[in-house]
């Protein structure tokens, strides 16, 4: 098999297309690069889905936590505490064992038949857990940023007659994002790192369709040689990290565009936020 044929056979193996059998003998670099890269599709899927949905829940949670009313504040505080205070690994196991307890055939609600079996598969169940998890971490970041909006900005907004929704939309939200963005970039990077846990935490890899680390682990188990597959995963993740820093850097530039260049906040990668 030439390398081109390998790519044709395995490039979308993680989604169930192409060759059904994974390579069993004569492993070569091309196969490992292709399959592990194919698994990376799942990491990107989980990361992008959880981040893009989590952004909105995180904003809502941060506002609720900053609210003076206890009936909004308390639930938000508890949500953030539970998801930030416990290991993601346990959250995955907990979610999986809760989801398998749902009745197999589906549930009847008001005569409506709802299937439940799809919830136990990784693409739905694990994505849901990651969504809640990243919402909690990002909400804490946004809450911190919301608290450090300069008092003068808010007073100036009120002096201009802005209040309620328009004050939030024009002053608080953009400033919150600008202040939170470097930390949020970190959160995004470590969320992508956390997606590697999915197939090691109860969620089964249906028909051996797994993520990058799942295939790397497969190769390491088969060849007894950890020195090839794991560096390949590392290589892919470093690329992913740089891509993320680039993309988030563009947003950061836009958020800071009204400021003089020496006061702009720069994105610095700090391993401060992992699960």
């Amino acid at each position, binding site marked *: 098999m030439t390398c081109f044929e390998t790519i044709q056979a395995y490039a979308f193996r993680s989604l169930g297309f192409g060759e059904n059998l994974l390579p069993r003998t004569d492993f070569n670099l091309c196969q490992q690069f292709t399959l592990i890269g194919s698994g990376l599709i799942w990491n990107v899927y989980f990361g992008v889905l959880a981040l893009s949905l989590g952004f909105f829940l995180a904003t809502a949670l941060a506002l609720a936590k900053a609210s003076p009313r206890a009936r909004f504040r308390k639930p938000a505080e508890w949500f953030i505490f539970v998801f930030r205070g416990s290991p993601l*690994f346990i959250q995955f196991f907990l979610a999986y064992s809760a989801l398998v*307890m749902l009745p197999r055939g589906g549930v009847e609600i008001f005569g409506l038949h709802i299937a439940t079996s799809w919830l136990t598969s990784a693409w739905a169940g694990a994505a849901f857990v990651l969504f809640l998890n990243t919402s909690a971490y990002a909400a804490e970041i946004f809450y911190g940023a919301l608290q450090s909006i300069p008092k003068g900005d808010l007073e100036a907004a009120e002096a201009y007659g802005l209040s309620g929704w328009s004050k939030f939309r024009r002053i608080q939200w953009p400033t919150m994002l600008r202040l939170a963005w470097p930390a949020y970039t970190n959160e995004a990077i470590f969320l992508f790192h956390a997606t590697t846990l999915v197939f*090691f935490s109860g969620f089964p890899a249906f028909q051996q369709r797994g993520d990058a680390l799942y295939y*790397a682990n497969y190769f390491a188990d088969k*060849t*007894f040689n*950890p020195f090839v597959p794991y560096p390949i*995963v590392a290589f892919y993740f470093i690329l992913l990290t740089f891509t993320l820093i680039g993309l988030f850097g563009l947003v950061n530039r836009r958020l800071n565009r009204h400021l003089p260049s020496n006061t702009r906040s720069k994105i610095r990668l700090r*391993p401060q936020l992992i*699960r």
Partner: protein
Amino acid sequence: MFSFCADPKSLEGFSWLVCYLTSAKHVDFYWSFLTVLVLLAVTAPSALAFGFGGAMAARSPIAPLRWFGKTYTAMVRGVPDIVFFLFFVIALDQGIEWMKHQVVCPDWKEPIRQGLEFRVCPEAKVPSGSSAQIWHQLYGFALAVFTFAIVFGAFAANVLYGAMNAVPRAQLETAESYGMSQGQVFRRILVPQMWTYALPGLSNLWMILIKATPLLFLLGVKDIVYWARELGSAKTQAYAYPHPDWRLWYFIVLLIVYLCMTRGSEIILSRLTRRLSHGQATAAGEAMRRAAQ
């Protein structure tokens, strides 16, 4: 454990539950919490030591040492930590066996990597094939601890490197002008002052370490996650205590245990931060000075 537990099938209600929760396997489960605590107690200081070494190496004037230190501090930034966990456990195991092989059987002719196998001479197996099960478990645990120390050492090196750079330059220059040598400046001025800058990062790291302990399960150690899965899975009538799938309840217990651990550490660490900020030239220290006036 109790005498009335002799025939579990005849029990009901509360006494069934008492007997169930004190069965031999559950006692193993409770002991596995100790495994986690031992891991934390051993890993935290050794990771700190690794981190200190890494940060010192990254500041070193000798170029190769500096490169090593910089690589070590940078390695956890772009790559998921779990990749390192899975990698180091096998790599360390094979590395140790390879070194022992070089010493024990120097005239072994066959190559060690034969196709898909890693084969050292039988005498070089670690721990040796004839040793008791407990030694295999201890060896596995030691490898896991060492792996944790390497990975968390890299995180700690990041924090300590940042903290060393955060100590005001003027302090070091003053010390130099008093005629202290580089080593004296490092020991007497830099290290005592850096802790207050390092503490927020280190307390964060401690939380991360607590939350990383369930990963022991992936490294093949029989830890709390292993026992929770084992005990919680559905048991048929063939077992002494048959029950349906109870994994959910076991994981809820684990979740609560972890929440208590992180919450408790948070409270203790915030007290420690207050103590260390006392009299420091930082915003927190200044606020305390103002409040005391």
